[in-house]
């Protein structure tokens, strides 16, 4: 069953990533990868909250498989982040590439911390 939930969550997460990226990039017409940044930050916040729930309360295995492993893993991406950084860098936008990496790391890890803190406050 776990395998089924991982696959379902991963498929839905990937589709939502695609839709979010299209919507955000159409809205923010810029060469900065706002779409991928958005899914990575939001997904990290959600996984932070799920981790806090798992640490403090009894989280069903189903939730972990469907949402933590599947959905958050499918929604967020490292490969697109890496490729976009390469594109910025080789496209002579080196400062923007460095900024993209720095902002993604700081905002992603920060969002995970906020999610973890909020969930820890709820489930303690």
């Amino acid at each position: 069953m776990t395998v089924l939930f991982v696959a379902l969550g991963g498929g839905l997460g990937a589709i939502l990533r695609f839709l979010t990226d299209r919507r955000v990039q159409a809205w923010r017409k810029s060469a900065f990868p706002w779409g991928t940044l958005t899914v990575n930050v939001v997904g990290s916040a959600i996984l932070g909250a799920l981790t806090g729930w798992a640490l403090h309360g009894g989280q069903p295995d189903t939730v972990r498989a469907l949402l933590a492993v599947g959905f958050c893993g499918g929604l967020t991406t490292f490969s697109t982040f890496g490729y976009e950084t390469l594109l910025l860098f080789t496209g002579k936008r080196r400062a923007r590439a460095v900024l993209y990496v720095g902002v993604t790391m700081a905002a992603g890890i920060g969002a995970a911390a906020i999610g973890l803190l909020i969930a820890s406050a709820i489930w303690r």
Partner: protein
Amino acid sequence: MAEPASVPRPRWDAFAAIGAGGALGSLARYGLSVAVPHSPGRFPLSTFATNVSGCLLIGVLTALLTAAKKPHRLLRPFLGVGILGGYTTFSTYATDTLDLVTAGRPFTGLAYAFATVAAALVAVYAGHEITRAVRK
């Protein structure tokens, strides 16, 4: 990946390809995490390997798709957005970094955070350039 706003609306089969790819990629990532278990407070080896190998593969894939004369329109959604997007993960990278910091190993956490990004970026570049060189 950034696209111009004027691109046509994706057809249903693009969503099916992305969903199926995302499911397969997530299963591969899950399989690797089961095969190489991660104990809390230790270096997250399986997620590190997943993200670096996924970055190597996106470099290979994008080089192949750029060089192809007329790649099938579902190849990129299925392999790139779906499989490699579902296989790699940023959220677990972020929470694993936090896990190391809260476990009292902030230096391992920092090392993990920067080593993953450095190795992943080198992998994308290497995958892209080696593929281009081989195809010439």
